[in-house]
């Protein structure tokens, strides 16, 4: 199975498993293929095995089972220093006893590059991250964001085709992080490098990546483009993990014409799009995004699924209104509506009717 796809995948995990202690599997049956030039993000809760996957790819941990292929060649037995993979560590790992320029020229020196070539490349790499004036400083004399850029420059200076980054922006404040997110993606696309990026910030994952792999419990729960991931989550973990989400539990009554009729635990029957339910009687968790629900009569579509609701809380957030409702016995049903001139402003205690399109409501695994 691995062999026939190996030709076009640049990085490939083939049924990889990893256990540290011989008792529990930290990574369970990981299969992943990345084409050259892709920016792929591994996203998942703490302890889901993201760093472990990265370390196996970099060669600092060995896979307990399975193959990791780089450009079609198994790298299981290649030591880290021969893999030629650039890496940005979470704490940057800039060598404190060397200046910035020495840090950058280190990978070139160990490749036995001549002095003038080295200086040339170091200068180019520093200019690339707009740090040209800082070559003589020590890492401790730089701010967090500057260190981050140097770490990036150091991982790129020897022109690796694959760069791994483990939560490189974790230590930065929000503004700087957003700026760096842009700089990293921009640089990656300009240089055409393949990037595996680890984060547990979903916004970062959605905005930066070509594809996102959502990890949980040592498995990839879904691997998809950001918009797909958000709009078409394949299971309730992904639906819960990415963005805000309203869920209600129930049992499938029947499936017909591409719609599943679900009887909620509160007794109401609603129409949903079946995603991982297959037959009547299946228990399901239906999921709907807060911004896909309307309560303004003019905006509710004719085909909409309608339900009664009671307003519990109405929060004015400037650009949007965030309303908490009781719907079918669920007190945590959230609706987000745009602050438009014709938008209703609700009061707690009001009885209203809400509606959504059946295809926006997904019947997922329970």
């Amino acid at each position: 199975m691995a062999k026939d796809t190996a030709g076009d995948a640049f990085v490939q995990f083939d049924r990889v498993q990893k256990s540290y202690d011989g008792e529990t599997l930290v990574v369970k049956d990981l299969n992943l293929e990345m084409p050259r030039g892709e920016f792929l993000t591994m996203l998942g809760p703490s302890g889901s095995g993201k760093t472990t996957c990265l370390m196996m790819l970099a060669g600092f941990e060995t896979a307990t089972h399975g193959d990791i292929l780089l450009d079609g060649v198994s790298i299981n037995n290649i030591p880290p220093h021969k893999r030629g993979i650039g890496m940005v560590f979470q704490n940057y790992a800039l060598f404190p006893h060397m200046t910035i320029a020495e840090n950058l020229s280190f990978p070139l020196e160990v490749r036995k590059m001549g002095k003038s070539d080295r200086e040339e490349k170091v200068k180019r790499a520093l200019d690339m991250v707009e740090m040209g004036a800082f070559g003589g400083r020590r890492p401790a004399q730089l701010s967090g964001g500057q260190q981050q850029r140097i770490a990036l420059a150091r991982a790129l200076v020897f022109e690796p085709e694959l760069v791994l980054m483990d939560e490189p922006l974790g230590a930065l404040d929000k503004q700087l992080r957003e700026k760096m997110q842009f700089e990293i993606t921009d640089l990656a696309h300009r240089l055409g490098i393949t990037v595996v990026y680890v984060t547990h910030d979903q916004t970062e994952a959605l905005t930066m990546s070509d594809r996102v792999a959502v990890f949980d419990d040592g498995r990839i729960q879904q691997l998809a483009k950001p918009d797909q991931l958000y709009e078409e989550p394949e299971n309730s973990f992904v639906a819960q993990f990415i963005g805000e989400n309203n869920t209600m539990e129930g049992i499938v009554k029947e499936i017909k014409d591409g719609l599943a009729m679900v009887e909620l635990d509160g007794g109401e029957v609603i129409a949903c799009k079946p995603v991982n339910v297959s037959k009547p009687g299946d228990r399901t968790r239906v999921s709907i995004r807060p911004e896909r629900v309307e309560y303004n009569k003019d905006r509710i579509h004719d085909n909409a699924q309608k339900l009664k609701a009671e307003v519990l809380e109405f929060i004015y957030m400037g650009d949007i209104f965030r309303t908490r409702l009781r719907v079918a016995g669920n007190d945590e049903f959230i609706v987000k509506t745009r602050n438009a001139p014709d938008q209703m402003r609700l009061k707690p205690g009001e009885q209203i009717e809400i509606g959504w399109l059946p295809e926006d409501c997904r019947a997922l695994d329970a």
Partner: protein
Amino acid sequence: MSASTNTEPMLSADGKPLKQSLARALRRQKIRALLLIAPLLAFIFIAFILPIISMLFRSVENDIVATTLPQTVAALQTWDSSTGELPDEPVYAAFASDIQKAAKAKIHTKVGLRLNYEQSGIASLFKKTARKAKKWDMEADGPFKEKLIDIHKGWSNVETWQTLKVHSSNYTSGYFLNAIDMHKTASGPEFQPENKQILLTLFGRTLIMSLAIMGSCLLLGYPVAWLLANLPMRHANLLMILVLLPFWTSLLVRTSAWKVMLQQQGVINDVLVNLGLVADSARLVMINNETGTIVAMTHILLPFMILPMYSVMQTIPPSYLRAAKSLGATNTTAFWRVYFPQSVPGIGAGSILVFILAIGYYITPEIVGGTKGVFISNRIAYHILRSLNWGLAAALGTILLVAVLILYWAYDKMVGIDNVKLGG
């Protein structure tokens, strides 16, 4: 550095120089901190600084001749010691009067002993003379020149008078000259006769052996410290206990154990002979010489090398080595270029600690050193406890102290003392 280096001093809001305002703001904090450590400072001053000062003083102090024999010292002023002729009657008369007073006050032996360090035999000369001199009548019994020479022919020896004159000043460089195998003579400082020169050799040996001990501690300790810092917690704890174990055993027991191990009929020789590696007739001599001292002291000082290195290595995150490897460095390059430089502060701290401890070590060389493996500190102890030549002991101690300070200074110049870290 930055382009904005201004020659004008920075001013704070009230127009005063910023440096001044800062100093004022910090002053109270400093005073409070000082009060907290005041008891310790007082203790250190009384129990450590004062004794050192008094020791320094003792190494040059020499008022015993001048206070016990004041008239003689005054009379000797006019005598030219370099002619080789004996002094005249007034000097002899002054001495007779001085020694009689000293004998009555029973302090003549002390001055005799003091001068005996410089010229052996003087102590007995003084004793004999004083016994006779007690009965003299100073007015009637002159002239004293013949009388004294009658008692002991030492008084007809020019050297005796030269020694007296040379050591009659209140302060002397004599102890320091003695400490470097020289002595004061009428014609200036000279080296002692060959057979009495031992101290310079001892200083040299102390330095070289301390360096050797430091080196072997470093070689043996570095891998242990590395393991301590990098093993999983459970194993590291066990290893730490093994490192600290020697601390829980008496120094004497450990040193004596090395005697058992290293002696010619000892464990190591027996094993080597039984294995056929060494002939029974050619058992190795590993104790009561330099080898014994180096082996035993390396063992005893090893923890002082390991612990500072460990605490520094512990702060080096493993991600540095990983980063180096991901950048293409082999294990060896990664170690030497990235790990080792960061562990240098620990090496510096451990080495200074071990070297300074070694250079003043006393018990271990005394027990396992024999005659060839003893240190200068053993000689100091000898002069304090046996020969009671405290002045010389003080001079030796002072030289040792200065040598350590010079080495410390040199280290600071070469490596920089801020590069020494005991942890954190």
